[in-house]
């Protein structure tokens, strides 16, 4: 995992696990690069989740853990998408961790 990514002339710093050090560094371009580090090419289906996560964070100041993420997606995007399997298909084995990273949210609480 690289400790920084270059966006135009800007260098954006990441922590050892690839999360943004400064949440305000996030942009859609940054999201694309963060996803690339995870081996993910962002599609429309990813973006709808990224936007959902960002508006959730703006309101609740919380990165949802897996179970809450599934329920959030179920409530906002319907039962077809509100499933672990769907989210794992998009973001891999730990969808809460990876989607929070790409969406520019803090790492979900490590106590959980």
């Amino acid at each position, binding site marked *: 995992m690289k400790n920084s990514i270059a966006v135009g002339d800007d260098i954006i710093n990441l*922590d*050892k*696990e690839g999360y943004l050090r400064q949440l305000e560094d996030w942009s859609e371009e940054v999201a694309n690069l963060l996803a690339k580090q995870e081996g993910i090419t962002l599609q429309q289906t990813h973006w709808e989740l990224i936007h959902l996560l960002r508006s959730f964070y703006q309101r609740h100041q919380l990165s949802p853990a897996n179970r809450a993420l599934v329920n959030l997606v179920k409530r906002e995007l319907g039962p077809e998408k509100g499933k672990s399997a769907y989210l794992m298909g998009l973001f891999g084995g730990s969808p809460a961790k990876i989607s929070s990273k790409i969406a520019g949210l803090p790492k979900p*609480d*490590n*106590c*959980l």
Partner: protein
Amino acid sequence: MYGAILNVKFTVVVHSAPYSTQAAASAYRFTKALLEQGHDVYRLFFFGDGVHNTSKLTVVAQDDTNWQQQWDKLIELQKLDSVVCVTSAIKRGIIDEAESARHELGAVSLSSSSEISGLGQLIDATINSDRVINFG
């Protein structure tokens, strides 16, 4: 020795720092007593300000009780499972080698008798202990 009729598994949760309230001292004496009576400690869990009980960087006057050292000795002697809540610990400067490396801090403060882990360990303890007692 006090004869224990049945053996009970306790989890002791400590919420306060030593030298701030009496709670940590009470928890220590309670833990010692339950072991002397033949009961078991399933887990010690240090939460919130309680994490300060596990700092190895503590100095007290010769005539004061060093609570961190007392815990250390008890945990090692009795081979207790002693867990420090990670979110509480790292924001209060209680850092083990892994956290020190992860956050590039260059120092370790956690006593080696305890380990840093998540709140899941507290929930696991509520499931697997007969009694959970909190001191704060």
